[in-house]
């Protein structure tokens, strides 16, 4: 494994290995504190994403390494018209590994084809965000102690939500997974995900617009934000942004060990009165994100 561009690049065994390493890091932080001493991570963020960038930087720092980079295209040579290929070639002389976020879909793949150092896709437009998916998988493993035999509710923007598409793809490889797809009809899961992922792998799923209809059956409830930047039409965004708001009342029939997840940032889709519920895992999920990124950096740098 030289790069991580798409979650599909990883086999189930490689994902299991990353999760195992991440769990060991959580238990033995001191053991890993100097593993990347003398190594540098470049965070090339051509569009802002404070949370993901800080998570990568914290991950490298906790491994004893250093970080450099930029947090928007305005502060990079791209604003002068430089190509991805040229930028990556140059940064490869300054850093040992690169985490890259770009608004254009496929940009990290282009970078990986030109780079001499490992590339991690830290999000490319509405396309892939594999470290978010790894974060989600580590969260599920840590909170539920398994990645199979789960009923997973996915709620909100299932049309444009790349985290949802990647999570479905990743979880479809485990046994006895059932999905409950909860969305307004305008934001239904795309047909190609149903056909090329769910049907192809014989995965059981139901679609509903009612968040409470299957609540009592769920082991995981994955909430998503309706993202303004994915809409071409502002009216559609305004109409759909607050379609679902999860609050305590809607959780009345939920299992006691339900795991409520959200890739964050949250806007209105989870009421703050849910935050104190022990089933709310979304802040812990952000913390798991740092540990899985530490495991990934070690793997790509071939450090044991």
């Amino acid at each position: 494994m030289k790069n991580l561009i798409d979650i599909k690049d990883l086999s189930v065994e490689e994902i299991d290995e990353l999760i195992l390493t991440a769990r060991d890091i959580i238990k033995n932080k001191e053991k890993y504190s100097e593993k990347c001493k003398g190594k540098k991570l470049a965070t090339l963020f051509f569009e802002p994403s404070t949370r993901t960038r800080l998570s990568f930087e914290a991950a490298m720092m906790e491994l004893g390494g250093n970080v450099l980079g930029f947090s928007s295209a305005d502060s990079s040579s791209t604003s002068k018209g430089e190509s991805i290929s040229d930028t990556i070639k140059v940064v490869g002389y300054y850093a040992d590994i690169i985490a890259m976020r770009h608004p254009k879909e496929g940009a990290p793949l282009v970078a990986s084809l030109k780079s001499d150092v490992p590339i991690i896709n830290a999000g490319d437009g509405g396309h892939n965000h594999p470290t978010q998916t790894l974060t989600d998988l580590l969260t599920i493993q840590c909170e539920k102690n398994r990645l199979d035999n789960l009923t997973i509710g996915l709620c909100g923007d299932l049309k444009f939500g790349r985290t949802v598409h990647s999570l479905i793809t990743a979880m479809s490889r485990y046994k006895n997974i059932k999905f409950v797809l909860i969305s307004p009809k305008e934001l239904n899961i795309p047909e190609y995900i149903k056909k090329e992922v769910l049907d192809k792998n014989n995965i059981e799923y139901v679609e509903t617009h009612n968040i409470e209809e299957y609540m009592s059956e769920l082991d995981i409830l994955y909430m998503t934000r309706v993202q303004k930047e994915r809409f071409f039409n502002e009216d559609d965004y305004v109409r759909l942004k607050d379609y679902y708001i999860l609050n305590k009342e809607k959780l009345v029939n939920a299992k006691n060990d339900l795991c409520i997840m959200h890739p964050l940032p949250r806007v209105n889709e989870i009421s703050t009165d849910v935050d104190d519920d022990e089933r709310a895992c979304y802040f812990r999920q952000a913390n798991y994100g740092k540990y899985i990124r530490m495991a990934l950096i070690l793997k790509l740098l071939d450090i044991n």
Partner: protein
Amino acid sequence: MNIDSIKNGIVIDHIKAKKGMEIYRALKLDELDCSVALITNAKSKKMGRKDIIKIDKAIDVNLDILGFIDSNITINIVKEDNLTEKFHVELPEKIVNLVKCQNPRCITSIEKNLDQVFYLTDKENSVYRCKYCEMSMK
């Protein structure tokens, strides 16, 4: 209407009617120095109407282009007035620089010197997806 038979060359047959010119352009047949006949709306028992292209020279035809434009095409190879080979084209697994990705969010819309590459992801429904953004071709 009569077109001379060819001695050494290629006959591209069973082209869907009206698609002949697209194939003529895609194969850049206007750049050849031999006789090329494009017959449109020819009567066909199997297809009703069809287009045919006759090339009076043994050239290397890009079968991927033909398969992508019309996978029902038949290729006939003629050598010394005899039909020596006859086969159907297939949907190619990969097409390069034949069509552009229409996704405005795709990296191919801004990065220079990048090949436009599509892969066949669903043969049954002839679905091709961009190598970079994975959006299906419209």
